[in-house]
């Protein structure tokens, strides 16, 4: 069993490959914000207050274009809707924690932190004795990404995007997701959920504001439920 400190370090370590992909993205965000005509302090403030990559990209464009505040806030809300699924899926593993922990962890919840943390939580739940300090793992992964995001935003603002696109470092994010999801596909309903969500995501990729992702995820969940229900019924008949 790992101590608090070792759980924290494990979270940081597991987050590291993803940071290779996230950091160029943070730099591009900084560059994009400046080219939208915003003062340098502003994209940094957004990274600090909002801490949500895709929503930040959209919102600095809208701020630069002088869109009404209500439109910008509402758009941010829509782009971040998918976090409802993340937060709900983590919720059962966090019930034993106090409010303060959940208030802290919620701030750090991004696509990448969710992917890493939920994979570990699900894995731990299959073990005979679950680590009592899993929140420290979440905190380690979250703070690692938070630090990298703030730092890469600052580098992007100060120096521009320094990493050649040809290195294709953004691909490390997809690769990490692959490495996390494939070993977890241990039964037919999960495979069905994954395949259907993936196909729907490709079909509705033109949907703006990440709504395609929400639609794809919900389709996957429904297909997973349907396959599982059918399996259970078939087993009962036997």
């Amino acid at each position, binding site marked *: 069993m790992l101590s608090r400190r070792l759980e924290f370090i494990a979270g940081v370590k597991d987050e590291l490959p993803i940071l290779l992909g996230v950091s160029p993205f943070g730099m591009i965000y900084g560059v994009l914000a400046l080219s939208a005509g915003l003062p340098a302090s502003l994209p940094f403030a957004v990274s600090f207050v909002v801490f949500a990559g895709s929503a930040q990209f959209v919102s600095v464009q809208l701020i630069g274009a*002088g869109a009404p505040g209500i439109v910008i806030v509402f758009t941010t809300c829509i782009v971040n809707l998918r976090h409802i699924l993340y937060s709900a899926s983590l919720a059962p593993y966090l019930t034993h924690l106090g409010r303060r922990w959940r208030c802290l962890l919620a701030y750090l919840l991004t696509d990448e932190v969710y992917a890493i943390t939920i994979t570990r939580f699900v894995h731990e739940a299959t073990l005979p004795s679950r680590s009592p300090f899993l929140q420290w793992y979440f905190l380690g992964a979250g703070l690692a990404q938070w630090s990298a995001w703030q730092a890469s935003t600052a580098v992007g603002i100060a120096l521009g995007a320094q990493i050649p696109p040809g290195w294709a470092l953004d*691909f490390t994010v997809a690769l990490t997701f692959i490495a996390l999801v494939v070993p977890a596909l241990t039964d037919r309903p999960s495979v069905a959920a994954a395949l259907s969500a993936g196909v729907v995501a*490709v079909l509705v990729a033109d949907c703006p504001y990440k709504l395609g992702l929400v639609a794809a995820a919900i389709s996957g969940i429904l297909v997973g439920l349907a396959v599982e229900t059918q399996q259970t019924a078939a087993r009962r008949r036997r």
Partner: protein
Amino acid sequence: MSNTPLAIGLIILGMGIVTYAIRLLPMMLLGRVEGRPLMRQALRFVPPAVLSALIFPELLLPGGILDLSPGNPRLLAGTLAAFIAWRTKNALLAIAVGMGALWVLQSVFPH
């Protein structure tokens, strides 16, 4: 920029509040799902569904255009990484091989 600095400050604050609320509220309100089997059953599929929904477009839509051909380096490299993750369950190895494969394939099939 047509918004005043004060207005922009308030907009950023508003963005922060809605984002935080979306991330926090389910965590706070949905704590105990033991009593709701359908909810628990549905939540089990969130990770595979969400992750695949993030992965598939990255592999199949490079540059936003559907490309199912073997000349699509991201599709080949991602499939190889998936195979390695499946056989070895070693995340770092899968990521390293996938990245290496992408670099090699990109130099073989330049855009």
